[in-house]
């Protein structure tokens, strides 16, 4: 399966909780509706935080994938 192409990548690896989520929120606010943003995180809290925020903020989770020692979250700005 071909990975969804993100327009913007936020490398939040090494950033402690809730840094990766805050970076994602900031990027989503700046982006146009429809934009796809990916966040790379090594923070374990992100695994629960980012999906919880995406669902609450009514954005769209495109993909959550384990990579080499980090997790890749791909989110589309839905509104």
């Amino acid at each position, binding site marked *: 399966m071909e990975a969804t192409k993100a327009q913007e990548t936020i490398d939040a690896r090494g950033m402690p909780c809730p840094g990766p989520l805050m970076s994602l929120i900031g990027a989503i606010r700046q982006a146009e509706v429809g934009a796809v943003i990916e966040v790379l995180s090594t923070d374990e809290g992100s695994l629960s935080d980012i999906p919880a925020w995406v669902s609450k*903020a009514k954005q769209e989770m495109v993909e959550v994938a384990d990579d080499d020692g980090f997790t890749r979250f791909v989110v589309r700005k839905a509104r």
Partner: protein
Amino acid sequence: MTETLSLVLFSGTDDKLTAAATMATGAAAMGTRVKVFLQFWALDAFRSDRIDKDHGVAHEAGPEGAAALRRMAEKGGPHWGELLRQAKDIGEVEIEACAHSMEMLEIGRDDLDPLVSDVIGIAAFMAGVDGPVVFI
């Protein structure tokens, strides 16, 4: 989910303020209103000339705990003041100073960091409570 999270901050050490700021940030991200009331040593830490200084850690943390907090900061973990700024930026977060503590510590409004929006009495704070009150 509750409408408002009320945080009463009493302790002025960096570990407790970081924990409080993290809670405020999470609540703001999830759309919960946050009201923060600053008393005693927490209020002292919000003086504009002290907010970025080292406020130490709680006694229970010990030297190892202090080192753990320093490591987190070196890894790029934001200062609690910055976390609160982010929380205010993404959500409805109000930070107010306790009038009683202001008088006790001889702090004027102009001495406070701009994160603090007002000085209020305890009854006014309680009047705004419509959910859990967390004391840190």
